């Protein structure tokens, strides 16, 4: 199955974040608890960790890009070879945990 990784929230006072760093290129597998991406808010860092296994497939917002809370950052899939042709429908959100520091 294909999953959407979105900017997690709500984060108090935050409407938009900036992508600081991806921890891996497309093709990397993530295990639950592993850090996928770090996001910057106006005053904090947000560490976003996978809450289920998945393969990073396509980065939608590269480092330095801005995105609103709830909007897509990347596509992941259960298996590396799954077809990404129709990611425009209602994709399920990848479960994540996030920590604000």
């Amino acid at each position, binding site marked *: 199955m294909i999953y959407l990784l979105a900017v997690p929230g709500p984060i108090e006072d935050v409407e938009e974040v*900036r992508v600081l760093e991806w921890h891996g290129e497309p093709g990397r597998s993530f295990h639950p608890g592993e850090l996928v991406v770090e996001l910057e808010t*106006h*005053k904090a860092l947000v560490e976003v960790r996978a809450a289920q296994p998945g393969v990073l497939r396509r980065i939608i917002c590269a480092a330095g890009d801005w995105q609103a809370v709830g909007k897509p950052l990347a596509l992941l899939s259960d298996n590396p070879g799954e077809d990404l042709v129709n990611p425009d429908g209602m994709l399920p959100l990848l479960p994540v945990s996030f920590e604000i520091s």
Partner: protein
Amino acid sequence: MLTESVSATVKLFFREAIARAVSESMRRDDRIILLGQDAGRFGGAYKEFSGLYGEFGPDRVRDTPVAEAAMVGLGVGAAAAGLRPLVSITYMDFLMLGLDPLVNYAAKARFKTGGQITTPIVVKTTAGARGQGVAHSQCIEAWMMAVPGLKVVAPSTPADACGLLKSALTDSGPVLFVDHKRLFSTAGEVPLAESFVPIGEALVRRTGTHVTITAHSYMTRIALTAAEHLAEEGVSCEIIDLRSLAPMDVETIAQSAGRTGALLTLEEGQLTCGIGAEIAFRIRELVGPIRMARVGALRAPVSSNPVLEAACVPSADRVIGAIRRLLNN
């Protein structure tokens, strides 16, 4: 034709726009020093001075004790002696402690000495209500506008924060730079090229035909939200972001209000002797009798209770209601 060099911008958080203005200014002029509580290694209460201590070191970026009268006094004295201090007073409420050197000395030095002494100091401070109660929420810009010799600027966007702070740091001063707690979570496009926003020029943020709204700082965003809702019911609002409160660009307001025939002034501070009262009288002199209304805080301190805070300071709903009443009269 738009060219890359004209239109190129970078999106920055509000705090980054301030840090950039200070950094570019300090590189250009080694007389500029920064004084403030937590302004050094910590990088500012809102991280708006992040990176400056590392770049310019402890000689030019100094932490101060919690002593606002001493901070402003030191800055004013240093300005009179030839430096260009930027003094950061975290909460505008505590600027009250520093008013004696700012009002009685800095704002008067030029007049008192026939122009022989100038005090090119910039005092940066943060106004506005955001859950911190009676003595950490006030907007006292109107008090400051009443002081001859003191310039007061209050941006609403990262681009204007950067451009106005840069202008303030080249001004003969003194300049009070007022930002707002609720602006620090915002971001916006800032010109890539070094740019200045002149002190004393308002900006039309939204064009409209039925009513002119004046606002500054965070209230500009409230006005824009109100205008979007009113547009859905066919009311066209023109929004003037004052940007500079003293001197004030009365011409731009008069030009707009003369055309729309209706003026609503919006401020987060108190209405009595407020910015709206000042604007209304000056527009009355220039434009003649038009419909006018003003929106500001209720006549009470801003509570630390979030429900009462929201009730006290202006909201988009209050602006919408006031404009409906103004236009229906």
